């Protein structure tokens, strides 16, 4: 009797573990949190198909298909239900609903199996194990797939694209909105860069940074106070970024109309 319900006891245990992990492990600890995946893809459907096929035998392929299919269906319908709650589709609600469904259905299966004389799950046993030679071949296949994955991920990460530099200018926020601007430079070139930044207002230079030395990926930004804007018309503030090898040709150029 107990052996016959080992699968459901395992489902309950895995569900409890998944719920515990989801509640206690921080969201950025992906390596551990990934163990909660069966709660979406497998456990609810397994419990449900065990209930639906109570007293019937199912082969492993059909059981897997039912577990996966039913789980996806349950999660989609759960999402529609969660949308009606105030918390909506949040981490907490996703832990609660599929977890509770799985546990309740699992207990129902256990109760239903009491007194029944059903067969053991067909897939329990050594039928699906591999002889050593075949196991090694499968390990080799996994190794090749791992190699292909590593090649593609590293290749895409290092794909040669032209480098670029971002220059931006926005009105400052808060009480200084009218008399200051925010400026930023980000170096996304292939090498470290030494820039010169010039800010003009009404045709006159109001500020100059003769050497902005930025490493690859480095972001520089500042808030610059500008002279008071006149009463009649908006004033143009202009920022020009130069590279050392072309000191007279602007490399990047932004401009901002400051309202009166």
């Amino acid at each position, binding site marked *: 009797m107990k052996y016959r319900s080992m699968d459901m006891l395992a489902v309950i245990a895995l569900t409890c573990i998944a719920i515990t992990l989801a509640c206690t492990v921080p969201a950025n600890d992906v390596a551990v949190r990934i163990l909660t995946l069966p709660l979406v893809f497998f456990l609810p459907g397994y419990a449900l198909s065990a209930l639906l096929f109570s007293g019937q035998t199912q082969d492993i392929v059909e059981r897997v298909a039912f577990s996966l299919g039913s789980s996806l269906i349950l999660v989609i319908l759960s*999402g529609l239900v969660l949308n009606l709650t105030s918390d909506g*589709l949040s981490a907490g609600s996703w832990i609660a609903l*599929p977890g509770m469904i799985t546990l309740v259905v699992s207990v129902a299966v256990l109760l239903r199996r009491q007194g029944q004389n059903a067969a053991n799950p067909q897939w329990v046993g050594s039928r699906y194990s591999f002889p050593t030679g075949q196991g090694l071949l499968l390990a*080799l296949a996994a190794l*090749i797939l791992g190699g292909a994955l590593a090649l593609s*991920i590293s290749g895409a990460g290092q794909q040669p694209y032209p480098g670029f530099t971002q220059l931006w200018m926005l009105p400052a926020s808060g009480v200084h909105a009218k008399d200051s601007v925010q400026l930023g430079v980000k170096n996304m070139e292939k090498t470290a860069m030494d820039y010169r930044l010039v800010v003009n207002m009404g045709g006159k230079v109001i500020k100059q940074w003769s050497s902005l030395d930025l490493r690859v990926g480095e972001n520089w930004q500042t808030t610059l106070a500008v002279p008071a804007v006149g009463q009649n018309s908006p004033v143009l503030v202009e920022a020009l970024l130069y590279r050392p090898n072309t000191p007279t040709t602007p490399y990047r150029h932004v401009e901002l109309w400051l309202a009166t």
Partner: protein
Amino acid sequence: MTTDMESMDNRNLAGATATGWAAWHSAPVQEAVAPPAATATATPARAQTWGWFPALSVISTLGVLLVALAYEGGRLSALQWPVPLFWCGLLLLFVPVALRLFSTKPTRQERIALLIVVTINFYLTKYLQYPLYFTFYDEFLHVRSAQDIATSHHLFQPNPLLPISAFYPGLEIVTNAVSNLTGLSIFVAGTLVIGMATLLLVLSLYLLYERLSGSTRLAGLATLLYIANPGFVFFDTMFAYESLALPLAIFVVFVIVRRGSLPARQQAALTLLIWAGLAAVVVTHHLTSFALLAFLCLWSIVSLLLWKMTRARQGQKQPLLAGPREAALVTCVLTILWLIYTNWQAFAYLAPNLASTMNQVTQILAHKAPPRQLFHSNTASAGTSLWERIAAYTSAICILLGLPFGLFAILRRYRANAFALTAGCVTLIYPVTLLLHLTQSGAELANRTEEFLFVALAFVLAAGAVQVLQTSGAGRRLALVAAVVVMIYFGQMVLGSGQPWSLLPGPYMVGADARSIEPEGIGAAEWASAYLGPGHIVASDRNNTLLMATFGEQMAETAGSANVPVSWVLLSPQFGSGVRAILRQDDIQYVVVDLRLSTALPAIGTYFNSANLQPATTPINRAALTKFDGVQDVSRIFDSGDIIIYNVESIARQPAGPPPTRHARPARPKKLSQPVAWVRQFYLWDILPQ
């Protein structure tokens, strides 16, 4: 062993014919699935069970490695070898496994394992192309919906890229669940969801075919033929709603068939699962639910006709067994209810395309318009090569020639099986879809129907193939059938792979969807999200619209969401009253200009995402793109060389009189930069706002 398996297949096929109605309710699968009898030594028995599966797995994964190498060649701009290597990889991935599945020797276990390996490997070939983030056009549309749910925690948020996507949120719900529970980014969570859905599709298809035919060989072949359809590798592996809805629909159809073999008291419980599955399909994808409804209706009609004919022939009362009728009714009710709930948006979305197809067909029939030239590219890119055209034509011809054999096999062996007859009827649509390729809109429609059509087509063709193989002269016929299936596969892959430039990743191209997604565009969009804050109305070209709406979290204007099409804002040679009027009418706050648009024609034919635009014939004038410079009240706030962002909020608000009140406010920047962090961010939750 061989003889046993062969005779088992024959017996099952004969059984399916002989028992008529009972055949599809209690197909003799148990006999077919029975493992070989246990032998004295465990190891040889286990080795026989798995057969060639481990060795073929190695060969098939070598195919994946070749494809990965081809992708790497594309990234490094190698000219000669990547494309041949890509096709060699795809052949190595599929052909050895296919040849094994033709044989009568593999056990059921080996067949299923081989199909799973091929499925995983095909899925990886799509994933490895762009393994850092979603890059395909359709994927961006759904990423936006997934992001909206992640930030708002609620469904049905307005999606500027594809408004209807928000009302069919099944895929995004599952992705949200995975993302919330595991902490994975939407990209990885979505990749996992689609991977699982693909696995469900293949398992459900195999089980469905096996239960219908009672033959593991036929089921394996049919599933393999389905995998050979162009949509399987190139479309249904995308992060898009059909990629989840179709597997769910096939699963539901399998459950309907499976229900027939259960005792009456258990049928009711399974009926609840069927209804829940139908609801999940209906809320996941409109087109799939319509196709499922049509199939279930046809299946119900055929069932009823067959039942009446059987009753009339036997002259006695034959009980009408549980079939697809109530499922068809429930699908119909749920579909209508969801259409009402979503304000019939699916019709508004699909109707223009259908109307356009009908119009074009009418024009061609009336000789008022020439038919579309097949394999002709009206874009700047190179067209399809001769060998690719030959492969595609050969594939279609092989299917057309194979259909009569399949239909004959259906009539001979499965004439009492309502599902098989329905599948036979559905395959008659295939020649029509080929004709639809002669129209511009119809070609899109035909491409979209192939994933559905191949469910029936694969079964019918496999039935024909098995029928041919079971007659005399098996050796030569086996070679012939294998050659035909490989040609079908190769031609369909060529058809599905699209334009040659889209086959491999590579350097930036103008208006080339995935090939136009690169770090500078992403960087500009991320800057917009970090410094402008989300939710501003932005106008741009097709690709930057996608980036601004997803990475940038902006309300990027599209043809569907704008009051007036925004393309003229960028195309107009001058910043005149026309441009000002569009900016005002659409309340546009920022214009994102990509100067690279002036360097080449768009590879896909158009710079913008409006269906009504004619293909571009000349590159956009650079002066038209830079016309915003120096215009009073238009601030050039961002410059990364190729991409410029202009603040046009003052112009959009001019008629109202008062000065703009919603100026951009700098927000706290996100920390992005180092290459490792750049890669890492796509895999972790921290790409999304918490």
